[in-house]
């Protein structure tokens, strides 16, 4: 295109009405009427743009597109809700499983010296009473009565020392007696007895707790409370 002709940029601007100076616009329009070459160029430009506009009027998408997209959107939303809730669900499962394992007795606090935790003892009464029975059996103490509140038993003063230590944190009420239970007609708790709670391994219960204990009073009757 020679210098006398209108540049393509100007023709494009003219088509889009982007020429702000009126004189320039008039000059170009007049030139297009006179010059066959520029007129043809402008016509071809308009045809090109018309083809593009025809493209705009076409309906490409089928109606299913909206339904299809919304289906995916709903599915993704549900997935997002699930993933948000997943940590909470996992935590609940872990807590429930942990509690189940704990109550099954696999981690029983009554087995060791470090079992002074009153919290764990109060949580697991049933398991704890089983442990008490085991401790009493181990120390050759005689079990006389088992109730919902306590286990009552009898042993000698010497053995009670170790037994009391093994019972650890548990509340124990005990009293001296001079006869084995099998020989007594009717025995009653004379005094309220001596009550101990939370005994450590260094302390010990013994006959020394009864300064006026007579020689023949060599048995101790006790109750271990839940």
């Amino acid at each position, binding site marked *: 295109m020679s210098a006398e002709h209108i540049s393509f*940029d100007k023709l494009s601007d003219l088509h*889009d009405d982007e020429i702000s100076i009126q004189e320039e616009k008039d000059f170009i329009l007049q030139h297009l009427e006179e010059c066959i070459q520029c007129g043809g160029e402008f016509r071809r430009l308009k*045809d090109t743009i018309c083809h593009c506009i025809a493209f705009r009027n076409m309906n490409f998408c089928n109606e299913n597109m909206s339904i299809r997209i*919304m289906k995916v959107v709903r599915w993704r939303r549900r997935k997002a809700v699930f993933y948000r809730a997943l940590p909470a669900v996992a935590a609940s499962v872990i807590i429930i499983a942990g509690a189940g394992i704990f109550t099954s007795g696999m981690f029983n606090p009554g087995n060791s010296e470090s079992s002074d935790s009153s919290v764990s003892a109060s949580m697991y009464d049933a398991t704890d009473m089983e442990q008490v029975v085991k401790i009493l059996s181990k120390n050759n103490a005689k079990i006389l009565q088992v109730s919902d509140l306590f286990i009552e038993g009898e042993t000698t003063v010497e053995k009670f020392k170790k037994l009391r230590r093994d019972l650890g944190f548990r509340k124990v009420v005990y009293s001296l007696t001079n006869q084995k239970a099998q020989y007594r007609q009717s025995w009653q708790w004379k005094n309220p007895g001596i009550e101990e709670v939370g005994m450590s391994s260094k302390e010990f219960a013994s006959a020394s707790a009864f300064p006026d204990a007579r020689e023949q009073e060599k048995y101790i009757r006790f109750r271990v409370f839940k």
Partner: protein
Amino acid sequence: MSDIDDIEIVDKVLAGDIEAFSGIIEKYQNMAFRYVFSQFNNYDEAMDITQDIFIMSMEALKTFRRESKFSTWFYSIMVNYCKNYRKKARRYMTVPINAVKDDEDYEIQIPDERADPENDIVMSDSLRIVKEEIHNLPDDYREVLILRDIEGLSYNEIAEILDIKLSNVKVRIHRGRELLKNRLFARGLV
């Protein structure tokens, strides 16, 4: 549907009513598909990309700051998604299965479940040529031409969507039009 309607829908979606988003899809699906189809010239690929664009825009609704029209914001997401998709596609170039090696043709006939894919888009020969030629334009020219001459956006909107200067938009439009006109002329269409 005006921009105010768009903003009402956006508010509803943000308030939890995701079904309201179908209004946005209905309004912009043709435009979005036209743009994507012109960019990639593959019907199925264009359908998938259009779907991804809508899902992405819905998830990004919170970032719409209402400083511009919703349509402009949506166009920006669409344009950027296509750019990124093209970059990714170039990184993983695909080779036609029937041009494997040594001039031997390994033609595998995969039956197309649709009766005639091209006829799904009822298209005349001239439009098919225009579509091909637009697709063959350089990326920079193609995207401004689609936004200007097919979608009818203003120069300012295009500058905002593409995040380029107004003068740059004009230059790209002029050059793109000239190139397209010459190619259509060569094929006897103008």
